[in-house]
């Protein structure tokens, strides 16, 4: 059935508030769900759909059940918003969380059980009609994700998600980098402390490119200074200098015979260190 009007009642089964607020956000000017015919209903009696958030705590279980039963017998669409409603989320096996006896609390089942599914299943077992469940994962989902999910329920968009099962046939590759793998991993770890996990990949990639080009320590130093001049971001410059120092230190530690076709440094290392220190102190 293609619906042009969807009254949604919001049911919170113990969520952290993140999803609720995003649900409110969906109604506000930038997202404006009303243009899709979506409105928040004041009472479950008016609702065609139930937007559920939260991992389903035992205290909310009975009230939630009553709320779904209070809906008109059809269409009773359930929209599970957020990871918690989809599968219990991070709270999935806490003691006050409701799970059906057959849903393991410490098992390795997949798709992962938990969330509103447990209640829907209980209701279906009791012979109550419950319509389709639209799962919108996210912690919390962006308003766009919720819009997409609602649009999916309304039949306005195509489903894009698809489960995958890969085996060895997918092929295997161990990428080769310009610098040795263990040094790369050490540098990557060090960068976490300087610029964090997110920006490190790009910076490390740039550094490896320079290290691959450099024929000698001096050249590497020059290339990096060049890079820093071209790139006005002081944080990236700092990270590059830290990388250079670390790189040389690790090279010293593990030996120079492989990788960069350079000889052991003569004193530049110290020079670089001083430079890095000065930089780290300034803004």
């Amino acid at each position, binding site marked *: 059935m293609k619906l042009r009007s969807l009254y949604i009642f919001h049911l919170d089964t113990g969520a952290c508030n993140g999803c609720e607020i995003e649900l409110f956000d969906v109604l506000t*000017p*930038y*997202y404006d769900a009303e243009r899709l015919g979506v409105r928040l209903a004041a009472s479950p009696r008016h609702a065609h759909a139930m937007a559920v958030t939260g991992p389903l705590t035992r205290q909310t279980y009975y009230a939630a059940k009553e709320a779904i039963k209070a809906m008109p017998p059809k269409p009773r669409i359930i929209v599970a918003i957020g*990871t918690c409603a*989809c*599968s219990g*989320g*991070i709270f*999935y096996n806490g003691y006050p969380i409701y799970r059906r006896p057959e849903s393991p609390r410490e098992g*390795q089942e*997949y*798709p*992962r059980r*938990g969330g509103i*599914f447990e209640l829907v299943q209980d209701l279906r077992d009791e012979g109550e009609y419950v319509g*389709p469940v*639209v*799962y*919108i*994962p*996210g*912690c919390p*989902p*962006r308003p*766009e*994700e919720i*819009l*997409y*999910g609602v*649009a*999916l329920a309304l039949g*306005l*968009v195509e*489903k*894009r*998600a*698809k*489960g*995958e*099962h*890969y*085996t*060895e046939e*997918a*092929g*295997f*590759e*161990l990428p080769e980098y310009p610098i*040795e*793998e*263990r040094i790369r*991993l050490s540098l990557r770890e060090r960068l*976490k402390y300087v610029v964090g*996990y*997110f920006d490190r*990949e790009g910076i490390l990639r740039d550094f490896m490119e320079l290290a691959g080009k450099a024929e000698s320590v001096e050249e590497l130093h020059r290339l990096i200074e060049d890079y820093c001049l071209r790139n006005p971001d002081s944080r990236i410059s700092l990270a590059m200098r830290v990388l250079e120092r670390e790189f040389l230190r690790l090279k010293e530690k*593990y*030996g120079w*015979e*492989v990788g960069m076709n350079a000889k052991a440094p003569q004193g530049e290392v110290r020079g670089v260190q001083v430079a890095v220190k000065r930089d780290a102190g300034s803004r």
Partner: protein
Amino acid sequence: MAVTLKYPFVKLEAPPEYRGIPHIEPRLCIGCGACVNACPADALLKIDDHSTGTRKIVLDVGRCIRCARCDEACPTGAIRMTRNFEVATLDRSDHVEVVELRLHRCPNCGNYTDYTERALEKAFQILPEGLFDKEELRKKAILCRNCRRKLTVDDTIEASREVVG
């Protein structure tokens, strides 16, 4: 004037910094399980089957809280946060990504070890040249835990015999 965005009727890209759903690149995954240990929500599972010699790394996007701890922990960059967020579905099995890998078989006893063939290869890649006796290590590393212990014991006995003469 109205500020409303046209989504979902037009395509919309999330900002580059956005943490969308994670995705495992099967060609890079070595099945080490670092992500499984890092995951606070148990969205990632490591399921070993020693009878068939397979390891499954299971990612359930529907349980994922998108903290990017797996991204941070992955040594090969196989699991990555994407910018994809359009994952709503009516069927939860659409959220599951499984990577099934072969476990390494101990050449000595023929049992499956608790690491994959790929993880072993990766380990050899990381091993520094020259610091260790690589050949010796290779010989031991490919054995299962029991055989390795046995080999070590055998070696020690042999060595002590040599010393005692």
